[in-house]
């Protein structure tokens, strides 16, 4: 069993297409997506159409939920995307479940199994990107007794093994690198072999200048900077 795992595309069609192109050469049996598909200025409508066409097994992210349901303190970009989507695209986004269990005992969520806006493995202490302590991560996984737990949300790629052998994998972000020091698009491939699940955390060079130009043309220079260098803090977006 070999599965490509995509997350946090954030409206970046250039990055998504580069990753899909890379996936095509990897001999996977399935591709899945972990949410936060559209919230970004580059080409959210293009991403919606691409994902509707592909019909990947998917879960929704917190920003997908905000676009669909609205919230009191709306992110500017979520309001923008909400206005750009047509009825069909809205219907698709509203239909994506919060969690999903795949054949092969692979569980999909966006943040943690219980909450799409909670980080599972990585966090910030002040301005320093670091990891949650072991006890916190183990506690978030309690009750989700599956061989592999897939999560996104933090945009930080990581493969971690819980005390009982379950694997937790975050593929990083396809379309919005933050605090990671690289503009490359990230995704993961997980593969079950005789000794257990292997993880591959891939970084794909793509035309990030084109994605940054789209963001800049739409009036989002901070996003353009994040897409170009990969060092931006989430607090600035």
């Amino acid at each position, binding site marked *: 069993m070999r599965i490509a795992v995509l997350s946090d595309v954030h409206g970046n069609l250039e990055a998504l297409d580069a990753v899909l192109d890379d996936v095509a050469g990897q001999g996977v049996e399935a591709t899945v997506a972990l949410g936060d598909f559209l919230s970004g200025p580059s080409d959210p409508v293009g991403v919606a159409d691409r994902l509707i066409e592909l019909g990947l097994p998917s879960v929704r992210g917190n920003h997908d939920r905000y676009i669909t349901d609205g919230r009191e303190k709306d992110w500017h970009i979520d309001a923008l995307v909400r206005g750009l989507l047509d009825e069909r695209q809205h219907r698709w986004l509203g239909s994506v479940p919060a969690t999903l269990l795949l054949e092969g005992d692979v569980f999909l969520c966006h943040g943690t199994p219980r909450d799409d806006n909670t980080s599972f493995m990585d966090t910030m202490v002040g301005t320093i990107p670091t990891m949650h302590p072991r006890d916190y991560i183990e506690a978030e996984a309690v009750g989700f007794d599956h061989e592999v737990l897939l999560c996104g949300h933090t945009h930080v790629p990581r493969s971690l093994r819980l005390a009982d052998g379950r694997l937790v994998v975050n593929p990083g972000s396809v379309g919005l690198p933050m605090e990671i020091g690289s503009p490359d698009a990230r995704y993961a491939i997980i593969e079950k072999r005789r000794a257990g699940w292997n993880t591959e955390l891939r970084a794909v060079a793509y035309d990030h200048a084109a994605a940054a130009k789209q963001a800049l043309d739409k009036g989002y220079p901070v996003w353009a900077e994040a897409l170009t260098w990969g*060092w931006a803090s989430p607090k600035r977006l």
Partner: protein
Amino acid sequence: MRIAVISDVHGNRLALEAVEASIAMVGVDATINLGDLFAGPLDPVGTADLLIERNYPTVIGNHDRYIADGLRSSSKAPVDAFVSERLRPVHLDYLRSLPATRDIEGEVFLCHGTPDSDEEPWLDGWWSDRTVTMPGEASVTAKAEGLDFPVLLCGHTHVSRIVRLRDGRLVVNPGSVGLQFNYGAPDARYAVLERHGGQWSASIRAVPYDFEAAAQQVIANGFPHWAEAIRTGWASAIGLF
């Protein structure tokens, strides 16, 4: 062109064999090694015999240097002492033959810690207050100054990361083959570099292996405090050596 990058084997032959099996399935043109080869209370001699036979392009790590030069006394460095007692002259000669830095065809630069030091971390701020921290851009970039290679490789921190500098150069730490600490997985780590159309990209691999058998080796050799690191990947690096 595809290159496998291994680092920080630390005497863990079981992990090395699992990584070599994984590399064989990937199919690479070369494998290269960033040092800290034998310094672990697992199977230093078995690891030495295997790596000398393989003869991968390799740079010396700080622990290799301590062992080769007899720098650390047994009371202060029980692991290096344990390893030094078991290695044969041929193993020590091999360590002494390794350069601190080298490059592959002007494309890929190898060092253990940073280009200037085998003891300095590059892509992680590890034990500065918290374990596993992402350093700032200025510090990462400064250490690459003057090195005109498309790919710069480092090990030492045991934390795998892929960074691309503003001028397009890639800096990669593959993580550790044989000794995981601070970040929560016992699985062996390595990296694969690929060049397509002049552009280098990288991926990090995590490979499960029989880490319980490796934990039994450290216990049998009298280093039970290594077992938690080997089994969980969560132990602190402090006090291991």
